């Protein structure tokens, strides 16, 4: 029986078009709304960047890290050091991103020696060590933190608009990078490793190399988020930027939204953020509730909210896999469903 294989179906074409429209709409937002809205969105974008990158790491490369805040802090402090030496903070963002990817290489040599289960705490130790090293440098503000120089000359409204655009740019780059990565040869390698590592190895896939590349990319993404944090807050404090709380946020968002899909973290971020706005004054209760939900989702609905939606409605907005259309049956037919399960 012949089978026709396609990347996407009509919903994906529509979602591509819709993404472009949303992007343009978001781009023009600083002209339309006040700065309190855009600065809220900056925080949302930062969270989405982090969740997307964590999802890439855990959902596709099988690397559960609890230490991505190491690169968050490294990115923020890279911007600080460059700004202290006269570089425009906005121009320092790409430098911070690149620097985090480079710094992740030697770190990966160390933490990759730990088995999957211990890898999680190993990355956490690295983040703790980064924090303790940072506070030893008085020029970085020590434990009390440092404020970001170099943005004083900007008009506040203009500065906030630029911050917003920078965050939008980092977010767009992150989502595009994740999407293209998963559609590339590397994405195929990762899927093969996830399904059967020994089998993948036998057909020439190099798991260690593929995982390392994803680790470097995730570090770069976290570095970009860290750069955005210092620019939007205008100061940085080691205990807060290196806090494991960031890991809690990215993990909860990805798990509730759906690990292993691009759509999941987007949905999760919007949900998390809405909850955060309405439960903010509840303090610790907020994290108790979200944490409990994440635990229950991980145990009973491991594919998350988006997994449930895409199963129910047969929907993929960012197609990274393949659709099989057996001849003579509709694309949604039983055989196609079975074949998709296999994917």
């Amino acid at each position, binding site marked *: 029986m012949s089978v026709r294989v396609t990347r996407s179906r009509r919903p994906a074409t529509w979602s591509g078009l819709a993404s472009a429209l949303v992007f343009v709409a978001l781009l023009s937002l600083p002209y339309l709304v006040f700065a309190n809205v855009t600065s809220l969105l900056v925080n949302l974008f930062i969270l989405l960047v982090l969740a997307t990158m964590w999802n890439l790491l*855990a959902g596709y490369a*099988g690397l*559960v890290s*609890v230490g991505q805040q190491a690169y968050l802090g490294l990115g923020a402090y890279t911007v600080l050091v460059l700004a202290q030496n006269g570089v425009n903070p906005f121009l320092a963002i790409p430098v911070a991103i690149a620097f985090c990817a480079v710094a992740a290489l030697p770190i990966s*040599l*160390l*933490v990759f*020696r*730990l*088995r*999957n*289960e*211990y890898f*999680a*705490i*190993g990355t*956490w*130790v*690295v983040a*703790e*060590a980064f924090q*303790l*090293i940072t*506070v*030893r440098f008085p020029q970085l503000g020590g434990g009390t933190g440092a404020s970001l120089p170099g943005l004083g000359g900007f008009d506040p409204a203009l500065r906030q608009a630029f911050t917003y655009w920078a965050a939008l740019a980092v977010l767009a780059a992150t989502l595009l990078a994740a999407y293209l990565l998963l559609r590339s040869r590397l994405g195929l390698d990762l899927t093969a490793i996830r399904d059967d590592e020994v089998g993948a190895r036998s057909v020439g896939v190099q798991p260690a190399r593929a995982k390392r590349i994803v680790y470097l990319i995730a570090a770069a993404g976290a570095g970009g988020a860290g750069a955005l944090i210092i620019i939007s807050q205008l100061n940085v404090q080691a205990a807060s930027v290196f806090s*494991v709380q960031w*890991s*809690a946020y990215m*993990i*909860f968002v990805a*798990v509730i939204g759906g690990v292993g899909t691009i759509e999941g973290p987007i949905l999760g971020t919007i949900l998390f953020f809405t909850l955060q706005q309405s439960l903010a004054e509840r*303090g*610790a*209760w907020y*994290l*108790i509730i979200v*944490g*409990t939900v*994440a*635990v229950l989702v*991980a*145990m*009973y609905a*491991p594919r998350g909210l988006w997994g449930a939606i895409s199963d129910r409605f047969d929907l993929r907005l960012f197609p990274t896999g393949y659709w099989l259309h057996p001849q003579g049956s509709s694309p949604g037919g039983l055989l196609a469903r079975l074949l998709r399960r296999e994917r």
Partner: protein
Amino acid sequence: MAWLNAVVQGILLGGLYALFACGLSLLFGVMRVVNLAHGDFAVLAAYLGLAVITGLHVPLLWSTLAVAPLFAVVGYLVQRLIIQRSLEVSPLTTLLVTFGLSVVLQNAMLEGFSANSHSLPSGWLAAGSFRLTPQLSIGHFSLIVFAAAVVVIVSLQLFLSRARLGRQIRATADDAEAASIAGTDVRHVFGIAAAIAFATVALAGLAFGGYSSFDPGAGTQRLIFAFEAVVIGGVGSLWGTLLGGVVLGVSQALGAQVDSGFGVLAGHLVFLAVLAIRPRGLLPGRVT
């Protein structure tokens, strides 16, 4: 003399770290689960100990008789109701679930006990010490904790190698499917292993509460120290864990001697150095 004192205090502190690491090591050895809420459960045990000590007016040592069995029950339930289910989803799910549990526990303790720090009144134990020289003295309490760590490790070792239930645990760890064919109730055996691990967590938490003050967020660092002790010593070896704890304790004490803010970082750096030079640890055990 100050350096010798640092080494001695570091060794004793290492006993506490080894006590923390036992439970982590056991859970990983038996069911390949890294419990990221390990440290938070220990802090919870310290709070329970505080309630028992102030409520019943008993000394710290006696409170272990109430808290450790209670924690064994908690461990059995956590294993049967939460960890087992996550294991069946996927091994990595256990990390997500125990991490979520850690955040929930920390914030629940924050809500219930406030952010203030407490310490366990250890009475005459805390005050007493053997004064060897004017600069070098060994506190009774830290000596008892070190001895407790050694006793726990020796009994665990004996239990796992000699006792019928211990051998059943090892058999299940080696091959759960074969063990279940041979008539072992795998889930129950895992539950027992978790109960033992949690009882050691309770001991570690109480010892920690007697050593220094604790607050709801203190668990994170406990987990990290326990983990470092396990990896420095060598995964899969209980004696290695004791050695790892001692190496970590001595590194921290010597680091703190150099500069008071350098202690914890020195421990992390030694851990990373071991990872770089001897990734299998100082006393690599057979991985059960």
